[in-house]
């Protein structure tokens, strides 16, 4: 070995201190293309857990898992998608179907982990570096896997509708109904929101399948008033329909109506009847409104002998006497009620409890009683002159019209109030040929009436006057007229954080003379038929019952429901109250039949 060989490594070492001859080229980051379909991003706060991503995934790579912090939010299942990257193929169908538009993909595509179980994560809930990435695949604006707009409903124009009491809504044709049903993603979020928890996705599917008899059976599982609810339901289901987040919600109510309209009432017995096994128990129901008749129907199906006591000459309660026929024609309501009667429910009309039949006698004679007497007493405006003969109640006007009687409203009418009764009274007055002003003490946006009723009353040229507080009713000297003094209101913030309060502006008063004033500011209950000894044992607050579990009152035999026992005071809640009371009465009278007892 020469000396040179021995020293050469040291000569090489000296190069280490020289400037390198090569160029430094660090390994570049290679980001995915701007619209690359990389790892998932879910905006978990906007996601409502409808599970459409899970359903559409062709590789079964997505599970829906409960996430505590989202539990119990309205219109939210509390579940969030969890991705198994062992199965995902990044096709992005989950992003394309996402109803809430919360699911996207980042352009990130590298993720190294030693443990294969790591490639399994709940996007948006588990922290990931790509969660805030703005790049990656997003569904293009306007691109939907289902049509975002609902099928238009054919309706009478406002000019046509005010001419008569004909039904305003024409209903879907089969072709329209199928197209509308096709938009449903079948997530079932609406089922929780529906007070009666109707099997909405299932009956919508029956439309797609063209199997309306199954649809009818499904509806009767939870609601014996589908023809009615298909027309006038408050349809809270539609408010939470995920399709409505980026488009218009499925017209669930119109689809329900469509099914009922397809089946002739002659076929109901064949489709719906099941064997009733008499159980020997007797139940009395007081009030033949939706709550009472719903309880009667489900009790009868369970084998009870049911007698319904009704003070009026026919059944339906507020549906009959409070909802005008242009929204709910009598034959639709009768279709529902006739079937309930046909299963063997006995209704005693024109029977007033406390007069024709004594409440205490019912308590002795029946094994259980369901009270659903509704709210039938118009609330007072508490202003001077209110008892003037030309001040009519909204309920009375509607009941007169329902009975085919002329309510004698004249040609120029003021309606006081902002609820559905006020809107109905106003629209009925328009149909009777009157010019109508609606005076409401708060802003239009705060009216408790259904938005579509407000819209339609405006279209029918009812003049809505907001922030108008009635002050006094005055006699004009004529028997056919009446004068109202009302003042403008200013909305004042409530220091306690409640909703703004209207405050009367004394310097901005108006007086106007009308042929009549229709007062429709709410209604209360009349519980005088209950003997004082029994009343004392019931907790009654502001004229309403406060039911416990299964709609039971403080007395074990008495169950309560409907407007007189709930806050929402709508038909569908009453129907569920009746159904739930039937479940409760069955548990009470047949305790052995239920494992939970």
């Amino acid at each position: 070995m020469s000396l040179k060989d021995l020293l050469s490594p040291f000569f090489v070492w000296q190069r280490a201190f020289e400037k390198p001859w090569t160029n430094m080229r660090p390994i570049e980051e290679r980001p995915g293309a701007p619209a690359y379909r990389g790892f998932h991003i879910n905006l978990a706060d906007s996601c409502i857990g409808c599970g459409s991503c899970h359903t559409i995934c062709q590789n079964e790579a997505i599970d829906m898992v409960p996430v505590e912090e989202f539990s119990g939010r309205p219109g939210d299942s509390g579940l969030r998608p969890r991705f198994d990257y062992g199965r995902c193929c990044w096709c992005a169908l989950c992003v394309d179907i996402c109803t809430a538009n919360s699911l996207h993909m980042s352009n990130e595509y590298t993720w190294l982990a030693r443990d294969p179980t790591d490639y399994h994560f709940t996007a948006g809930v588990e922290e990931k570096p790509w969660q805030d990435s703005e790049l990656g695949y997003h569904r293009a604006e306007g691109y939907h896997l289902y049509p975002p707009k609902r099928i238009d409903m054919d309706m009478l124009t406002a000019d046509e509708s005010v001419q008569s009491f004909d039904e305003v809504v024409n209903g879907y044709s089969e072709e329209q109904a199928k197209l509308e049903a096709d938009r449903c993603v079948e997530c079932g979020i609406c089922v929780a929101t529906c007070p009666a928890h109707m099997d909405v996705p299932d009956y919508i599917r029956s439309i797609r399948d063209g199997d309306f008899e199954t649809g009818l059976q499904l509806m009767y599982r939870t609601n014996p008033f589908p023809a009615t609810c298909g027309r006038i339901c408050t349809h809270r289901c539609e408010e939470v329909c995920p399709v409505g987040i980026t488009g218009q919600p499925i017209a669930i109510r119109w689809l329900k109506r469509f099914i009922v309209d397809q089946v002739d009432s002659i076929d109901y017995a064949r489709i719906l009847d099941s064997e009733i096994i008499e159980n020997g128990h007797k139940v009395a129901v007081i009030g033949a409104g939706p709550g009472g008749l719903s309880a009667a129907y489900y009790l009868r199906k369970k084998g009870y002998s049911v007698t319904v006591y009704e003070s009026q000459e026919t059944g339906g309660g507020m549906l009959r006497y409070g909802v005008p026929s242009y929204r709910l024609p009598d034959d639709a309501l009768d279709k529902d009620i006739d079937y309930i009667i046909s299963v063997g429910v006995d209704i005693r009309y024109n029977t007033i409890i406390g007069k024709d039949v004594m409440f205490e006698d019912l308590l002795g004679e029946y094994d259980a009683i369901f009270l659903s007497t509704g709210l039938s007493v118009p609330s007072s405006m508490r202003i001077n002159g209110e008892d003037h003969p030309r001040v009519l109640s909204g309920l009375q006007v509607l009941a007169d019209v329902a009975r085919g009687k002329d309510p004698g409203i004249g040609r120029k009418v003021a309606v006081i109030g902002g609820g559905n009764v006020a809107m109905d009274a106003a629209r009925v007055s328009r149909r009777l040929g009157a010019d109508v002003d609606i005076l409401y003490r708060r802003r239009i946006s705060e009216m408790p009436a259904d938005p579509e009723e407000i819209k339609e009353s405006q279209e029918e040229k009812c003049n809505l006057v907001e922030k108008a507080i009635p002050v006094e009713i005055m006699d004009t000297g004529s028997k056919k007229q009446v004068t109202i003094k009302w003042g403008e209101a200013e909305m004042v913030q409530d220091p306690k954080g409640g909703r703004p309060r209207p405050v009367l502006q004394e310097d901005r008063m108006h007086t106007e003379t009308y042929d009549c004033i229709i007062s429709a500011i709410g209604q209360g209950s009349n519980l005088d038929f209950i003997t004082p000894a029994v009343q004392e044992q019931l907790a009654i607050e502001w004229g309403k019952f406060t039911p416990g579990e299964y709609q039971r009152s403080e007395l074990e035999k008495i169950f309560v429901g409907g407007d007189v026992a709930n806050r929402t005071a709508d038909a569908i809640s009453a129907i569920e109250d009746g159904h739930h009371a039937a479940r409760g009465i069955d548990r009470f009278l047949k305790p052995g039949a239920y494992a939970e007892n």
Partner: protein
Amino acid sequence: MNTLLDRLATDFGIYDISDRKPAITTLKVEKQQAERLIRELRDREGYTHLNFITCIDYIEQGIFTLVYMLHNYGDKSTLGVEVDIDRENAEMTSIHTLWAQAWTYQRELREMFGINFPGSPRQEEDFCLEGWDDIPPMRREFNTKTYSTETFGHREGRVSEDPREHMKAQLYPTRGGDN
């Protein structure tokens, strides 16, 4: 362009002409006329480039629509020639004699849709689905979900909840349904 389309309508019976995008026009032609039309477009009308061949499955109508996308470098126009063929025993004239690369597309169409192109080279060989043992996967009767369920195993410990049932259990256990 319009003169050309008018002439093609007379000579080849093309129909359903539509402008899809600027400089992309599609037209339909009967299966029997297709090869002759495409040859004419290549040799006489400047459509010398075959962009691609693809297929759309119209299962409801029982047809496949083949699309031959041709490009003219002269006027930078693109023509999509669409040909409907029966889904049953689907078969089409091969155009690999017009453009050599056509056989690759045809091999892919055979594998993905099951369309036969008699005479096209290497038709029988696997293209990208090595060892495929099911019906061609781009046919719409192919059920991707069923296939993936039957073919691929599941990671252990995976559980999924149904939104509707989960909400019932959480929010209204005693309500709803037939009780």
